[in-house]
């Protein structure tokens, strides 16, 4: 009887040992990342419409001078917390993007009066992701996953001399801000710099649109569309638990 019991216990122990690598406790990390995106609040089509209006006005009205409105390039700054558990990565992050260096602004001079058009927008997001990862060795991984985002967006469209029908609605200022949920898909790679520090590269494709948001200045309302892609590189610090 004791011999059978011994064999059974040894067999069970061996089974557990085979499974045990799958039951590691995991790694917790915290990181910062920076990146770039183009037109994070999807204003390009609207800006294009205003630019076409300006060019058409210029053709119809000689003497008009203009500088088209740029579509913004935005740097992105973010933080993230990550938990690697076996072949799953759980990631919660936050990021902020605003066009500091290449702003969306243009102007049109009609009969000597210059109308400066500025479009200022920012976006803050909080993505939560679940990813499947393929490990090479400790903290050298590639991963794909997805999850939900919480977005905060702000938009301000201002004109110094409205009235020519270039911008719609043709007001001197309209400000909108709102909070809404969205989704994202993420692909990333990570490798260690030292025992505790790693470098990551991530491609995030995000999707989402808001309900109608009222202007703080007029009766106008609009929705936000945050469909865009981000490329981000970062550094993480890991604590093994």
């Amino acid at each position, binding site marked *: 009887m004791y011999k059978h019991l011994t064999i059974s216990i040894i067999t069970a122990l061996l089974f557990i040992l085979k499974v045990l690598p799958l039951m590691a406790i995991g790694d917790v990390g915290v990181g910062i990342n920076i990146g*770039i995106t183009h037109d994070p609040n999807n204003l390009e089509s609207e800006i294009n*419409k205003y630019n076409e209006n300006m*060019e058409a006005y210029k053709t119809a009205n000689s003497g008009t001078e203009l500088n*088209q409105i740029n*579509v913004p390039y935005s740097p992105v700054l973010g933080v993230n917390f990550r938990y690697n558990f076996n072949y799953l990565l759980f990631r919660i992050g936050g990021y902020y993007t605003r066009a500091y260096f290449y702003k969306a602004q243009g102007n049109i001079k009609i009969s000597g009066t210059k109308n400066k058009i500025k479009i200022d927008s920012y976006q803050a997001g909080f993505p939560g992701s679940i990813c499947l990862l393929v490990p090479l060795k400790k903290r*050298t991984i590639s991963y794909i996953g997805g999850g939900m985002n919480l977005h905060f967006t702000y938009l301000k469209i201002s004109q110094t001399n409205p009235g020519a029908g270039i911008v719609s609605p043709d007001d001197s200022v309209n400000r909108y801000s709102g909070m809404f949920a969205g989704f994202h898909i993420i692909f990333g790679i990570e490798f260690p710099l030292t025992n505790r520090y790693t470098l990551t*590269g991530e*491609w995030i494709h995000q999707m989402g649109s808001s309900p109608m948001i009222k202007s703080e200045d007029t009766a106008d309302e609009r929705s936000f569309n945050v469909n865009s*892609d981000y490329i981000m*590189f970062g550094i993480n610090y890991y604590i093994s638990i």
Partner: protein
Amino acid sequence: MRNRLIILLIVIFLTAPSYILAGIEYSTGIYFGFMPSMGGNLQSYVQRNSLGAENGIEDINRTSDSSDTEKIDRLIGATGGIEFRGIFRDYYLIKLGLNFTKDIYGGEGKTLDLTGDTVEVKYSMFVYDIPVTVGLSIPFWKDVRISLTGGIAYARGTYKNSFKSSTLNSSAKFNNWAVPVVIILCGEHFIDNNLSLMTSINYYKGASEVKKSNSDYARNDFSGFRWNAGVLMYFR
């Protein structure tokens, strides 16, 4: 601003510090692929004002039972290019490429205008671009390498459109440039020490200024996804 940025990036690439250059692993490659939707929505002023289409090729298609129309498909582009890469310290990657993309399918058909009259529509596009991207590249033993890079590209393209009906005869050609943001995800499988098969997904986002051509106004949109496959040769 754009010109200065391009010059700065090229200068950085060509004049990297010597200690980095000394440790660089150089490679060059050639690849071909396709782009499922070229030119964005190909929107222009004539489409909005004369045809009532606010979204270019995305809503130019109209049909009715009594009309002779033909679906206008999105432009599918064939793309190809070469690239030059430098990997330093095993993990850091910088790439310079040269790509050509031309539409090979789609962009032609017949639709209806606001009065129900048949309009013959034609779109076409040709783009060349020079992407400069930097990023991370992870070697998995000597078999496989996975890279993720991001950067910008100098893109120049020619977008042509024409809309012909009994009341409308518009054709335009827009030659324009822009600096789109580029993201490239690439995988390599090594056949031997110096040769690898590669495949990549490329994402471009950016469009040019609006330009005038005849009676139309439009920008060249270089945004979209591309898939490429090719070979890379390492100089070791």
